[in-house]
């Protein structure tokens, strides 16, 4: 296991290297003069030149990259152009609401997907299976932002049982916070459940056809024991990987959902920064989301190796 962990951590180095180059490159190499954007429109060529020197833009690009990486590793992501606050501080503040929504949404998604995936697999070919597949398909095809608007239309505007949008901290006003969370959590839950149940159903169907399941059945174990102890336990192993990948969809979706529900998370912060052309925030947020996605998938891989002993034998 230690062996696997080390090799997996070593594999992380090239990915993080390419990731940092991409984040740096997008904001430096692509067209657009940063000095022009930062300085007032009537700045003289000399002033622009001075600004470029101060920003380090006159130095060779590899040097700029190393300087930037050095700053990032020290936790310096630059400052917001709007109010000069450090980007790290803004990101740190925004991550709590995003995590709050993401974790509850994903948990809801798993809670919906597991029973439905199992039902679809054990009633393979029946109308229940058909229903599960249809729900999964619809959940996948429905645009999250449209689903959010429809739910808002129904629960906030027509029935007036939930607030339209906004945020309240969980520890300050728990009831209001939960009421504000209900709709965005439901949207995340539904859309992640769609992908998860589809995968679990397929993976369970595959496991149910394996020899050891037939053996368990033939030695007289009840259907439930076979499904829960033998089949589900094994089908859930690859399922963890898909849950990890779902985090990527979650981070992508965060931008739109947070905007619709005026939820002050990373996505909302990033969008506002894009509209206001506040590049340090966008860069910091991009780096942070890329990094968290990579780390979550690393954690999932390690968990996978822990759950599935076969992987350890191959590596050691």
């Amino acid at each position: 296991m230690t062996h696997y962990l080390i090799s997996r951590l070593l594999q992380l180095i090239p990915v993080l290297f390419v990731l940092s180059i991409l984040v740096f490159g997008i904001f430096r190499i692509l067209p657009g003069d940063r000095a022009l954007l930062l300085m007032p429109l009537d700045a003289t060529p000399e002033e622009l030149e001075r600004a470029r020197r101060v920003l380090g833009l006159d130095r060779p690009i590899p040097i700029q990259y190393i300087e930037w990486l050095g700053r990032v590793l020290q936790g310096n992501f630059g400052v917001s152009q709007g109010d000069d606050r450090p980007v790290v501080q803004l990101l740190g503040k925004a991550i709590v609401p995003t995590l709050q929504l993401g974790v509850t949404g994903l948990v809801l998604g798993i809670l919906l997907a597991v029973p439905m995936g199992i039902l679809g697999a054990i009633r393979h070919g029946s109308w229940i299976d058909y229903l599960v597949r249809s729900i999964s398909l619809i959940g996948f095809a429905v645009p999250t932002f449209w689903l959010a608007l429809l739910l808002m239309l129904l629960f906030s505007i027509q029935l007036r049982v939930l607030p339209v949008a906004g945020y309240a901290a969980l520890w300050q006003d728990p009831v209001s916070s939960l009421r504000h969370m209900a709709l965005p959590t439901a949207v995340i839950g539904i859309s992640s459940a769609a992908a998860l149940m589809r995968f679990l159903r397929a993976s369970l169907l595959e496991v149910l056809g394996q020899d050891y399941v037939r053996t368990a059945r033939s030695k007289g174990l009840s259907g439930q024991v076979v499904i829960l102890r033998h089949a589900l336990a094994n089908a859930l192993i690859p399922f963890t990987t898909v849950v990890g990948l779902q985090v990527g969809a979650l981070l992508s979706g965060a931008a739109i959902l947070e905007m619709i529900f005026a939820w002050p998370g990373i996505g909302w912060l990033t969008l506002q920064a894009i509209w206001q052309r506040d590049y340090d925030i966008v860069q910091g947020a991009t780096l942070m989301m890329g990094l968290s996605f990579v780390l979550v998938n690393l954690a999932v891989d390690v968990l996978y190796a822990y759950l599935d002993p076969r992987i350890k034998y191959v590596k050691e």
Partner: protein
Amino acid sequence: MARQFSAGAGRIFHSITGLFGRSQKPLEQPSATYWGRAWRALRRDRAAMAGLAILALIAFSAVFADLIAPHDPIHVTPGDRLLSPSTTYLLGTDHLGRDILSRILFGARTSLLIVIAVVSLGTPIGTLCGLVAGYLGGTIDTIIMRIMDGFMAFPGLILILAIIAVLGPGLANGILALGILVVPGVTRLVRGNVLAIREELYVEASRAVGAGVWYIVFWVILPGTFPILLVHLTLHSASIILVEAALSFLNLGVPPPTPSWGMMLYDGRSYMSSAPWFVFSPGAIIFLVVLALVLLGDGLGDALDPRRHGVH
């Protein structure tokens, strides 16, 4: 769709697969080629055919939007603001008095154009990278694949948002950003497929008769990747439609007044309590197109899977 492919570069693929497939060919299917059999399997798949029909209908309305649309999609009629659906305006009007149905029909053109542009930008680059990485292997393979891993390390929309943030919003920049996102998936898929095909007997046969490296890569191996690529691109088009709609919804896509489904949802959001139809129909059409693409993609996946042929 399958037929178009069979007429082109797939011809060599037939003659090759034909060599191996002939002996197992069921008697009731005379002159069956790989793509011909796949098409027959697809035609039996009712869900996939429904998807194909929906897509054909929407592609038709995108191309002939000028002839079908009952009204001018960008003409502002202040007196007709936010009218509910009626016989004059079948899906109602928006906040500027424009006909929503006409805007949806012309919006189909925008979406179709973007999907075609994005796919034709990203696919050749991804395919080339995948072919090179898979066939040559070694250091080049490692370098290409690590770069692709880096791209795939970002949650999809986040990378696109970063690129748009730097380049600025707009049609061309959106297509570029989405195109960049297509490349890693195609590269990984083609490379994996090339690794499998490379060891096939018919590739070895071409090598034995003295075919050059590039001839083998482009005329022997490449056609073998078409089926899986077609399935991938069909399913990926669904993501392109969704991401493009999301971009316009975030006001970072096609600039107004060009009709775009995502932008219509963005506009409609402010009038949800007084004009719910405004947000309903643009979202419904996105949903329908994505659903159709997924149904067709799944069907193609089954129909083009060689293991399933002759099972029916």
